[in-house]
């Protein structure tokens, strides 16, 4: 099987066991080394983890930008109402109230 992935390590701990990695025994999820620490020394794995982290950073940055935008315009106009909220509000009649504003 080779080397356990972090998800497999988490699974072993959740099943009531522990993971032995580089001489240390981890039996709590919070103690487990991060993906980046686990990839250290393996260029191929490092590239995979770096790419995954970049994707996370991009997604987080998008969330951060949205937060920044909403602070600039405290009154939410129809164009800025997220689609999910509009759909959820359909039954309560809030949509028409917002649209009237």
């Amino acid at each position, binding site marked *: 099987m080779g080397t356990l992935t972090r998800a497999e390590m988490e699974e072993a701990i959740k099943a009531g066991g522990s*993971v*032995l990695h580089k*001489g240390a*025994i981890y039996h709590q999820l919070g103690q487990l080394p991060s993906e980046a620490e686990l990839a250290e020394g393996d260029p191929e794995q490092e590239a995979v983890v770096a790419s995954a982290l970049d994707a996370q950073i991009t997604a987080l940055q998008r969330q951060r930008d949205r937060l920044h935008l909403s602070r600039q315009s405290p009154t939410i106009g129809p164009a800025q109402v997220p689609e999910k909220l509009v759909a959820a509000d359909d039954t309560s009649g809030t949509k028409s109230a917002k649209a009237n504003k």
Partner: protein
Amino acid sequence: MPAAWQLLQAARLTAIIQSLQDVRQLPQSLRFLGRTAIVPAADSEIMARFTGFVTIADLVADDQQAVTYQNTKLSYETTNIPNIKHGAAITQAMLNQLQSLMENGGMPRDMGLFSNYENRTIDGLLLGVRQRMEALLVAMACDGLTYDRLGIKMTNVTWGMPADLKVTPSVTWDTAATATPVNDIWAVRRTGRVRYGQDFDRMSLSTQAFMYMIATTEFQAKARTLLAPNVSYTNLTLADLDAQRTLAQNVMGLREIELYDARYWTQNPDGALVSTPFLPITKVVLSNSADDNDPTATDFANGITTESIVSGLAPSEMVGGVGGPTRGPISYATVPADLNPPNIVYWAVARGFPRKHRLQSTAVLTVGTFTDTIAVGPPF
């Protein structure tokens, strides 16, 4: 029967005997059962586990009060004892065949197969009960039991082994270049010694896991230091398991490495025979030889068989009797009272379950997900 025909019959029966002398049925050494104390127990027995920590005494000045500490606790647990039971029916046709064989004087060199048919059947059934006891004891050593058969369903039964003694190495042992089996064992042994005061001096594993272990670069590099200067590890034969075992014991500082490959057979509802190793081949069990047959570490709670209680209360189909309440494993035979149909069923039964009193008495490593490289289906 004409005397001239008896020779032919003998030849035919000899052939039958040879095919019935099946190596799968021969008794195996049940190692975990052999080193576990079997103790009398009652149903729904309540046990108290006493957990206490000895703390070091304080220094107290003259005329000052010392403090008291409360660091012991009692936790209660119950043991519900299941039955371990199976039977073998001797059909009407088989009974008639046996009778005709006996009338013929029996086979002189049949190794008791026919002449002691009853004893052999009962021996086989009792062995089957002991095999189930062994399987339960191994499950306790590995701290995991999953059972699903004939309506009894048990999933991930645990005996409370501490999480840091139930270890999965991050690199599996079948990865020869990067696996570190020697360091893995030393790390768990160190945890056992430092945290739990338990000195694991014996390692039990399958031959397959052992062969993966000795094939790793790490093991061979460490074993090399124990060889003569002019001998390289490549001079050694990996298949020479006895020599490799001795070498591995020295590398790992263990008193004993035992290769345990015994298997048991079960019959599926469709009649297919399936063999399963008592010790899963990816598990490595560490134990302390000083705990052998020590009931304060582990034991097998052996209850009184209900059959032996009930058989004396009222007339039953049991042949003879077992002489009152008796602990297992016992065996007996039943014959239908109205002989309809006329057959005999032999039974073997025990009532018990393994208990772990010292939770840290064993440690287990799951060293991969590999399978045995040797076929393990029915050989004949």
